[in-house]
């Protein structure tokens, strides 16, 4: 952590030095005019100096996208999106953000303080332009060195395309095919950048990937692309996102995440999503339309998704597992909060293909204000999945009288040996619970936080320690003002 903090400080001071000496004068500002057609796709690919196969891949996805309709089956109220009105490429504009903490919205800083974000990190999160020099910082290089010594590749997606094209070409789109859905097709056509990780056979990744890199990740753009491959018997824990509220001018986010776990490998993928949810009246806010899917592509593989979704005006997200290998395991642990006018339609799909495959789904939905929260899940047992097992627990918690919670579980079993369990509850934060906590001395805020964290406990315990502490505070913050 301290290395982390030091680095940020170093970077900030480096940035200041840079400004002083006119470091940023030679920045090429180029931006495409709004609009989306084949030329847009070609332009992006050319800008990124991509190989021909990737351009073809993008174009194919784009043509597919043109034939698709935005999905309307989710329980979401989405204003029409004009895809031709957006800009799909703009070069990084250094110096366009605030220059110092003095220029940052004090409300935002107050929130960082409440979350306990280290001082040095706050600057970077607030969008102060430090990332221009981020990659050249020695600590980053040291981490990369540690990883490289074990043969682990962890880099930006663009770098992976240049340095490891064979891996990218082999696995890209192998879990989420370009034409999978409207938003994934759009992502394939115009994705900006993202992350790539490869863990070689038998290697246990020695650190949580991206605890250090999370500030970078916060800026990776509107159409993010993530590809993680754990080779045979490898292990990796990957953290995405950040508990700090993230500033972003783009309203639509359509990311794609693909995970591949080969025989005996395990991938643990944790997300804390706190994009701008819009104001209390529902104005503004991010549309988060993400496609996340992992494939257990060998026997005894395991993929575990943990997500804490507190932000975004609209969340449309179903991290899923394809359990192809025998004895493979899929897990989904989720907390989703909707407050004010937020809407969330989120859940998972567990597709059991191999024998003795097991899946666990624990979903906790919390609705407050006028928020609408839907759990949507599918458990599918295919004919060859002998002795497959699923356990689903789906709990909803309501705060106040104007919110809604909905559960839509689909179960499709095509093998008589399957065992599927589903439990669901809906409850309210009761006045009695609040009074009991307050009578013991806890403030109203602390009381609510305690009750909410208790409700989410089974999910929060799946998060890596450092993340979990921040996530607990975040839950309380997201619901501030929803009681009393």
């Amino acid at each position, binding site marked *: 952590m301290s290395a982390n903090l030091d680095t940020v400080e170093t970077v900030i001071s480096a940035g200041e030095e840079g400004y002083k000496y006119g470091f940023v004068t030679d920045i090429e500002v180029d931006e495409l005019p709004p609009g989306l057609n084949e030329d847009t796709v070609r332009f992006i690919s050319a800008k990124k100096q991509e190989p021909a196969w990737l351009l073809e891949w993008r174009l194919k996805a784009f043509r597919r996208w043109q034939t698709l309709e935005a999905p309307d089956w989710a329980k979401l109220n989405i204003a029409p999106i004009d895809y031709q009105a957006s800009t799909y490429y703009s070069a990084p504009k250094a110096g366009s953000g605030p220059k110092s903490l003095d220029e940052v919205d004090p409300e935002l800083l107050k929130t960082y303080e409440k979350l306990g974000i280290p001082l040095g990190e706050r600057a970077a999160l607030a969008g102060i332009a430090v990332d221009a020099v981020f990659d050249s910082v020695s600590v980053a290089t040291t981490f990369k060195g540690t990883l490289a010594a074990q043969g682990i590749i962890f880099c930006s997606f663009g770098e992976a395309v240049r340095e490891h094209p064979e891996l990218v070409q082999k696995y890209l789109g192998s879990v989420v095919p370009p034409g999978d859905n409207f938003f994934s097709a759009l992502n394939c056509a115009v994705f900006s950048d993202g992350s790539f990780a490869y863990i070689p056979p038998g290697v246990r990744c020695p650190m949580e990937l991206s605890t250090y890199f999370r500030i970078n990740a916060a800026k990776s753009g509107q159409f993010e692309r993530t590809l993680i491959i754990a080779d045979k018997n490898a292990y990796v824990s990957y953290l995405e996102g950040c508990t700090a509220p993230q500033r972003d001018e783009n309203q639509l986010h359509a990311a794609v995440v693909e995970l591949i776990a080969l025989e005996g490998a395990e991938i643990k993928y944790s997300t804390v999503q706190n994009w701008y949810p819009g104001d209390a009246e529902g104005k503004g806010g991010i549309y988060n339309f993400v496609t996340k899917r992992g494939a257990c592509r060998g026997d005894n593989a395991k993929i575990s998704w943990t997500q804490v979704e507190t932000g975004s005006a609209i969340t449309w997200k179903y991290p899923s597992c394809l359990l192809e290998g025998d004895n493979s395991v899929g897990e989904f642990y989720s907390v989703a909060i909707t407050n004010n006018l937020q809407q969330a339609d989120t859940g998972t799909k567990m597709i059991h293909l191999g024998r003795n495959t097991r899946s666990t789904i624990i979903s906790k939905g919390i609705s407050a204000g006028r928020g609408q929260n839907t759990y949507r899940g599918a458990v599918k047992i295919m004919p060859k999945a002998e002795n497959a097992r699923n356990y689903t627990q789906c709990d909803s918690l309501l705060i106040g009288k104007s919110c809604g919670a909905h559960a839509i579980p689909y179960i499709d079993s095509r093998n008589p040996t399957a065992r599927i369990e589903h439990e669901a509850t809906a409850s309210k934060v009761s006045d009695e619970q609040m009074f009991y906590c*307050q009578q*013991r001395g806890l403030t109203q805020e602390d009381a609510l936080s305690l009750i909410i964290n208790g409700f989410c406990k089974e999910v929060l315990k799946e998060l890596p320690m450092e993340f979990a502490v921040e996530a607990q505070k975040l839950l309380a913050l997201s619901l501030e003002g929803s009681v009393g």
Partner: protein
Amino acid sequence: MTNLLTIENLHARISGGRDILKGIDLTVKAGEVHAIMGPNGAGKSTLSSVLAGKPGYEVTVGSVLYQGNELQGLGPDERAREGIFLAFQYPVEIPGVNNMYFLRAALNAVRKQRGEAELDAAQFMKAVKAKLSLLDISDDLLKRPVNVGFSGGEKKRNEIFQMAMLEPKLAILDETDSGLDIDALRAVANGVNRLRDPGRAIVMITHYQRLLDYIEPDFVHVLADGKIVASGDKTLATDLEARGYAHLASAA
């Protein structure tokens, strides 16, 4: 000795309803144990709710002074941090929240108010062990979520254990004997007796006289139709047991 609690001509009701308390006068000094008895519907639970500041209750007339200061206007948590403890008739379940974690959060909130340092996990465990001997409480109970799946006896014991840890100045025990078998009642009563202290007042609200066999009060008051209709020493309780509430209630 100065009064810890002074209730004067207290009228109170559930917000928007009719007065349930219709003019209560009561004075409690530190070190004293008061029993408030009365038939169903007399206003016993309303009195404890009003003292603890439960939302949804309002005082229409009169005053409640605690350590010389008016309680009205203070939230339930502020009163708790000032040393008012309510042992609930029906302790509330909080799923997923570890009993120890809950108690530590509560204790630290109270300690902060008193200007004492907050306890870390290790210091807290030490404090817990010291108090555990007071009550027959198993470690298992401490590790479980607050009141979830507790038997009636376990819930009440847990309330008294919380009281032991929080060391209030004024403890209000609301029907603490209800739902207890004789062994559990004895255990809870023993715990309360060990918490009697010259610096602490205890107000027991109870329907039955049997609790007073185990916790001997200094004063007994009879509450009927929102008023205290009789006050006396513990012999009043014995008297009540023999003659019932009816003759007192009709006097109200």
